[in-house]
């Protein structure tokens, strides 16, 4: 799990076309497979992650 401060890392933020915070990107095999923008509760995050770990 990695955390990125967009203020200090503008290039990375632009690379992934971040337009809002908080943004959560889920990577699988080096590729972005999910993007969650805004606040989400545990259940919602679980669903997103479960899709890719089955």
């Amino acid at each position, binding site marked *: 799990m990695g955390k990125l401060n*967009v203020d200090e890392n503008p290039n990375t933020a632009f690379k992934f076309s971040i337009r809002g915070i908080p943004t959560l990107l889920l990577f699988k095999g080096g590729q972005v497979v999910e993007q969650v*923008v805004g*606040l989400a509760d545990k259940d919602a995050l679980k669903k997103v992650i479960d899709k890719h770990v089955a």
Partner: protein
Amino acid sequence: MADLRNVVIIGSGPAGLTAALYSARANLKPLVIEGLEAGGQLMLTTLVENWPGHRDGIMGPDLMTEIRAQAERFGAEVIRGHVTSVDLMAMPFVVKTSEAEYATRTLIIATGASARLLGLPSERTLMGHGVSTCATCDGYFFRGKPIAVVGGGDSAMEEAIFLTRFASHVTVIHRRGTLRASKIMQDKAFANPKISFEWHAEIEEVKDTGKGEVTAVVIRNTQSGERKEIPVEGVFVAIGHTPNTSLFKAQLDTDANGYIVTTDGSRTSVPGVFACGDVQDHVYRQAITAAGSGCMAAIDAEKYLEGLPQHLGEAHATA
């Protein structure tokens, strides 16, 4: 059924945490369920200059950290979690999160208010992809880009002016012919060379949902009916707030705008349920008034508990 609580507080802005501070000091061991937007609206602000006692101002998030720590110092328990349902017909009341269930003799509602949206399908699709309700959070991503701000009040002007730090141009889209914002904010906005206005204009669509990013807004002039497209890469919606009352629908009296009705201090239509902060206040909406009403709710809850036969809640809790 979980332990029976004296006080459960939903929400962790100035209202909820001040209610926690007072009820903790009354030895009621309150439980605060933070909610998704922990700390409330002040977490999205920068310098707060009208909180008494800080002559040079205090950063919003710092203020919330302080109030929280102060409440915890006296025994308030603040937990992460988002309430998914409440049952106010039960005695004791039942509060559920996705993780747990709580039974409580009194409930203090401090769920606050959230940014109101236009209600367009395209707005929803592009939220977080160029559509935002928080200039302080997301303005940074629009460096050198044209953007639009929707609204005509103080907060819309504040956002528009703030966003000129980043954006190449800011178009304010307002459905009336005059601003509702205070004179001082209007003057600042009119004097800013990067800000222009579209009057009597309503957004019909945010483009481009197919691309998954904002490329333009389609606006309609409410007087002439004329439509036009303005190329922008961001849309900031600043058309006010709506109270977060969906949990209590049909359980508590609300006014025409959805705010919880409080009478005789912080009392709601259900005895033992109290409300404070922006969820019941569409007039003042200040951190200090929210905190003040949180204090009232804690004192009202304490009085209510004193009048409650000790056995009452407990008998039902174990049933």
